[in-house]
């Protein structure tokens, strides 16, 4: 570890890091704009310049690596003069009107830097040239007038997300941030993840929905989890007066390292469904407002009669505490033979989970670091976008992609090799691949031998398995997959559905739901969407009770409807696709008079005279070989 001196302090720092990082590690503040911890150093804004003994010129601390015996000064008159010159030129270059900017007053790195330097005016007045404002995007606005050309957004879109939408056009003062080399942002290849907006140090990239709704200083930060898919991304909810104002990256989140997708960051703000706010009970053929007591009693009365002819269905967006109590009440208490979750099964996953040794089991970290990825029956781009970012950003240089599908399959155009994988082809493909490299002449199949060669030469290959891996629990395909993994030393990453999909498997809820012949059905939907076919499949059920947050076709046909809290209003535990158990806490109070699913389950148990244990952990123990423990980092606001 080199020893360096910064402002007279003798510091021991890790080798290979930059002077700026070394200073930050020891609490020495150096102002910066283009630098961002999670992006490669760029050295573009020159605000972070420092004096290094022996160097004639000031050096950008964000790019200069530490060397043994280095002496750095961050606060000399020369450095301060250079900083003020840089800031003066930045304000003088474009059109900065702080007085009405959304980020002014604490959330603007540029303004904060100027205030730190005690700038009371701009030394250079702007030439007042107008720059393009692009308001074509449904969620965001780009105002080039406020852009300082730091390229954080360009780097984030490339290095973190792998989408490469942003770039720079023209030169000098005419340089413009541009999507897809000249398209309006709203018509570009943008996937609406908002990472660029998150890293923008000024108000050049802003969200429409959160603009003027409260700066960081006026909102509270609540760490939480996205329940959109089984990746289990950590995020920060910004809350003002019990209202969700903004969803922000949580860079220290262990699963996603700050990245979020459209679903996680923006969808909650564009909700069009109507919220249920009171229990409803069907009287004289119409759903009418009722008290909770009346609604619970009506359900209990029906369940008492239907007993083992009761079917129960639960959403995997709900916490483990709900899944466990639900399963116990219906499967053990009422002896129902039909207790399932909305996803209705991952046919190949139970057998794979049982067969995978800890050495063969991949985590998302392995996907980030893999040099060859074989994707089978999975749509990372649309179903698990953040996991998709981890893969896309490494293509094509760092990672080779072998994809089962066609050029039209998501990521199909980025794949190094496309393999046929429909129906019986999967088995033959896996069998052929698992035999390893063969000559083209021998196999007669160029794609297969190319794929085998890529897997053979990879040092950290992984296989990503989705729900569409095979049509069903195909033992031969599973055996071939395991043999392939063994032969190439590949790890296997199993993808699941929504947030608690994997926990649902552990509770035995991942199975086909068949309500025929059932006399009552209880659906614990939470804030989930019932999907297209469920209303039709439950059309002829004699009694349907549902606890849901939103009105839907399904709630309209129910006999009893109970309102439910949203994911932000209910805390609990979630088991992500890696088997990592994470806890989310409620960040918002639900509207007055809404009871949780757990309260409903407890009340029904009481009315039915069924003792109900709320224990939920045992079934989840060991699903991951004890690799993860509950991640407390998500539950503390650090």
């Amino acid at each position, binding site marked *: 570890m080199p020893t360096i001196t910064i402002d007279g302090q003798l510091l021991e720092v890790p080798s290979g890091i930059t002077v700026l990082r070394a200073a930050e590690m020891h609490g020495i503040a150096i102002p910066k704009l283009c630098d961002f911890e999670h992006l490669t150093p760029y050295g573009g804004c020159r605000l972070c310049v420092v004096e290094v003994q022996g160097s004639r010129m000031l050096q950008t601390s964000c790019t200069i690596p530490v060397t043994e015996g280095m002496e750095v000064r961050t606060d000399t008159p020369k450095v301060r003069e250079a900083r003020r010159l840089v800031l003066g030129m930045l304000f003088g270059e474009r059109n900065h009107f702080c*007085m009405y900017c959304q980020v*002014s007053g604490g959330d603007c790195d540029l303004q904060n830097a100027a205030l730190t330097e005690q700038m*009371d*005016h*701009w030394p250079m007045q702007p030439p*007042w040239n*107008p720059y393009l404002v692009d308001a074509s995007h449904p969620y965001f606005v780009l105002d080039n007038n406020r852009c300082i050309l730091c390229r954080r957004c360009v780097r984030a879109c490339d290095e973190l997300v792998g989408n490469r939408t942003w770039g720079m056009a023209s030169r000098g003062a005419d340089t413009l941030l541009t999507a897809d080399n000249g398209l309006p942002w709203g018509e570009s290849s943008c996937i609406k993840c908002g990472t660029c907006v998150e890293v923008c140090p000024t108000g050049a990239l802003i969200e429409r929905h959160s603009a003027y709704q409260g700066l960081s200083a006026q909102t509270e930060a609540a760490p939480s989890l996205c329940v959109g898919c089984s990746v289990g991304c950590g995020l920060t909810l910004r809350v003002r007066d019990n209202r969700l104002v903004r969803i922000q990256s949580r860079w220290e989140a262990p699963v996603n390292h700050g990245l979020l997708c459209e679903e996680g960051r923006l969808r909650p703000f564009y909700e069009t469904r109507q919220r249920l706010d009171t229990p409803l009970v069907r009287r004289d053929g119409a759903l009418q407002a009722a008290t909770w007591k009346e609604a619970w009693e009506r359900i209990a009365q029906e369940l008492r009669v239907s007993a083992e002819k009761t079917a129960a269905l639960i959403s995997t967006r709900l916490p483990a505490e709900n899944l466990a109590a639900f399963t116990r009440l219906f499967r053990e208490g009422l002896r129902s033979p039909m207790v399932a979750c909305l996803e209705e099964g991952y046919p190949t996953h139970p057998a794979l989970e049982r067969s995978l040794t800890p050495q063969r089991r991949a985590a998302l970290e392995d996907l980030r670091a893999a040099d060859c990825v074989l994707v089978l029956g999975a749509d990372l781009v649309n179903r698990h976008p953040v996991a998709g970012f981890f893969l896309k950003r490494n293509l094509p240089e760092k990672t080779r992609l072998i994809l089962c599908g066609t050029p039209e399959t998501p990521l199909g155009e980025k794949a190094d090799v496309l393999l046929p994988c429909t129906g019986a082809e999967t088995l033959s493909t896996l069998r052929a691949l698992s035999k390893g490299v063969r000559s083209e002449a021998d196999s007669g199949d160029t794609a297969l031998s190319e794929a085998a060669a890529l897997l053979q030469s990879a040092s950290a290959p992984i296989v990503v398995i989705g729900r569409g891996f095979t049509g069903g629990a195909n033992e031969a395909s599973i055996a071939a997959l395991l043999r392939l993994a063994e032969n190439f030393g590949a790890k296997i990453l199993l993808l699941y559905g929504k947030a608690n999909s994997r926990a649902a498997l552990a509770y035995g809820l991942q199975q086909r739901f068949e309500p025929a012949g059932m006399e009552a059905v209880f659906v614990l939907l939470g804030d989930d969407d019932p999907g297209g076919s469920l209303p039709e499949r439950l059309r002829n059920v004699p009694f349907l009770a549902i606890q849901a947050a939103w009105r839907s076709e399904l709630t309209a046909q129910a006999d009893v409807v109970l309102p439910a809290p949203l994911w932000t209003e209910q805390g609990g535990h979630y088991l992500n696709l890696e088997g990592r158990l994470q806890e989310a806490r409620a960040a918002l109070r639900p509207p007055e008079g809404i009871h949780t699913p757990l309260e409903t389950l407890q009340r029904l148990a009481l009315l039915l005279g069924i003792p109900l244990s709320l224990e939920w952990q045992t079934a989840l123990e060991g699903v991951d070989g004890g690799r993860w423990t509950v991640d407390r980092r998500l539950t503390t606001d650090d």
Partner: protein
Amino acid sequence: MPPKISSDWLGACAGCHMSLLDIDERLIEIAEAADIRATPITDLKRPDPEGVEVGILSGAVNLSTHVEVAKRMRERAKILVALGDCAVFGGVIAQRNLCGTLAALRRAYLEAESNDESAQIPEHPDLGVPEDVRALHEVVPVDVFVPGCPPHADVIFYVLNELAHGRMPEIKDENLHWE
């Protein structure tokens, strides 16, 4: 002798002087410590020809007449204060530089949806000739910059109180705001 303070506004919305009035009863303290002379809200309209210790200007320079007002204040004041964002860098008014003065006047006086056929761009010798918007320091040297749109009343009181007691205000830390 208490220091004489005079103020005036250029191309401004009057918000800075409103914020000045927001110092409330502390205005009496300032009036006791200093001799408040010509301001837009007192009877005298021009700074004393024999000079004042402090001249305060809010607003940007955007008419030929503003140049005269700015120069007269500069000549007569020992210390010139640029009060508010318009005086400091051009402010909201400077947005019209992005489209040009004539286009802005046409949009406002001729093309605005609320105008009828009788609409015309106002012309009067008192108005002088419209110009591109400039910050005060582009026209005359400025001694104290007080940014803000408008500056907080507490900041204005700090500035006036320091000047009233013969001290130079330092706009920094808790007195430095840009919003």
